[in-house]
């Protein structure tokens, strides 16, 4: 098996990942360190204590990793926001008076969340750290898209033909492609035998779908299949589940 033969390890990817991790770690520690150096609260009391510093660093970390998502589905968003909410809920609970009263030695951080998270400079530090972790990634990706675009990037860059948008007005059609009782169905496709060449791809991510080979047929164009009414063929996309957000385009890759 290829994985066992270590064929897929890319030193370049590993190095990029390691570099990003090192950078994030340094930012996540040293920005709070410098922001808390010899600082006090706005009423003069202590804020650069061990517990507040720990809380600040871990909150920075949470925000930094929550923002770095590559795509946001409804489920994803709920869970990420939910985990942030849970983090604050658990933190405030663990650092509350009640929990401390029950078991003093187990909850020594009592009062820390209340006393440090109401300081503006703490939140400004968190904001700075999270943005600082995210911006290099965005910059790098944008420059890569401009300088060495992949086929995906080219697909996203070309605007969708307007006729397609007018046609696909499904509200919530996540039905299977089989329920086409009101349309002409797949008859011409089946008879032409084209379905055998194209594998069905059911993942939906983003707005585009790119064909695997350069010899992809264009479902939006005129197919050579049988069209009984003589009208332009309906742009049903066979053998791929149609959702309202998927649009098909033919992309040709100039480089082999």
């Amino acid at each position, binding site marked *: 098996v290829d994985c066992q033969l270590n064929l897929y390890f890319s030193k370049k990817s590993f190095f990029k990942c390691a570099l990003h991790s090192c950078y994030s770690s340094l930012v996540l520690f040293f920005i709070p360190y410098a922001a808390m150096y010899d600082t006090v609260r706005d009423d003069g009391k202590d804020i650069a204590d061990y517990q507040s510093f720990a809380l600040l660093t871990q909150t920075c970390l949470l925000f930094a990793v929550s923002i770095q998502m590559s795509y*946001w589905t409804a489920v994803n968003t709920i869970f990420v926001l939910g985990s942030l909410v849970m983090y604050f809920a658990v933190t405030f609970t663990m650092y509350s008076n009640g929990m401390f009263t029950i078991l003093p030695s187990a909850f020594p951080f009592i*009062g820390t969340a*209340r*006393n440090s998270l109401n300081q503006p400079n703490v939140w400004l530090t968190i904001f700075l750290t999270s*943005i600082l972790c995210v911006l290099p990634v965005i*910059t790098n990706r944008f420059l890569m898209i401009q300088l060495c675009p992949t086929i995906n990037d080219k697909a996203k860059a070309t605007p969708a033909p307007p006729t397609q948008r007018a046609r696909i007005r499904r509200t919530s059609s996540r039905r299977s492609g089989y329920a086409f009782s009101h349309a002409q169905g797949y008859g011409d496709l089946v008879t032409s035998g084209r379905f055998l060449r194209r594998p069905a791809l059911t993942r939906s991510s983003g707005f585009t779908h790119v064909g695997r080979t350069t010899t992809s047929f264009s479902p939006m164009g005129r197919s050579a299949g049988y069209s009984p009414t003589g009208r332009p063929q309906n742009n049903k996309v066979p053998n791929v589940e149609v959702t309202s957000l998927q649009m098909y385009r033919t992309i040709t890759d100039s480089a082999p």
Partner: protein
Amino acid sequence: MVKQESESANRPDNTAFTQQRLPAWQPILSAGIVIPGFVLIGLAFIGIGVALFVTSKSIQELEFDYTGYSNESPCSSCAQSVVANCKCSLNFTLTTLLQGPVFFYYGLSNYFQNYRRYGASKDDNQLYGDLSYFTSPSSSCSPYDYDSSKKPIVPCGSIANSMFNDTFTLTWTVNGKTNNVSLDGKGIAWWTDYNVKYRNPNVTPLKNAFNGTVKPINWAKPAYELDASDPSNNGFVNQDFLVWMRRAALPNFRKLYRRIDASGDYKNGLPAGNYTVDITYNYPVRAFNGVKKIVFSNVSWMGGRNEFLGIAYLVIGSLCVVMSVVMLIVYAKFKFPDEE
């Protein structure tokens, strides 16, 4: 794809959720979004940075090192002697009013309160007033849990044992007259520390709770005599004790000692003039090259004086604007070849 009958009962439903076909939003990094975005972020950061920097610059702060390493330092004699309660004085002059409320801090350098074994060396139950832990302190306090004659130490542990014990008084000399500046020691620790985390045992008089225990080795007085004149500041809820027990994260730190009482001549802060700080030099730091300082400072909405945050925001904001210009150039250069 050929139509297939659903043969097995375990086949998942053909819904978007189960087949992982949910609509997803993916941030597409097009030039029209990224470049203006960076400019906006850059400008916002620059704005915040300017506000922070200006605020930080407006905070007045005075710092004096009184460790006594150099022979010209006022406390050098105390630093070299081993006599307890050695007294020395530090003079300074204020040219302008130090705006109130003024806070008086003591600072230590090269002092690692964040050391793991040090930080674990305390007994939260004891400090919560649980008398059963007075007779048998937690083992995390060792070797500061029992003294040489096997009597329990209260409060046990290394943090309590190393409590800072220098004291300071401040006087203001004007027109030949020396006025005492009153220092307020109330409410210098966190409200939650004073009211919830640390409690005295429910015994009156407090002294009786400590029967059969001994004070920490380095302390001059036992816990129930930390402030005999004020029962609300005595025992474990003594404000100086609480401030010390809230251990610092970094090796160079400051802890609040007192507040300048804003009354009488000092309503607006510390007026200009000559001041003298009388120090009772007890705390030994020379053994580990530590440094002791006193700091007078006022505060603002962003806390004490710390220019880092302002400068960081300014730098990152400028970098964002520069990067957006760079990206615009890259985009413009590479856009035109594609359009041909």
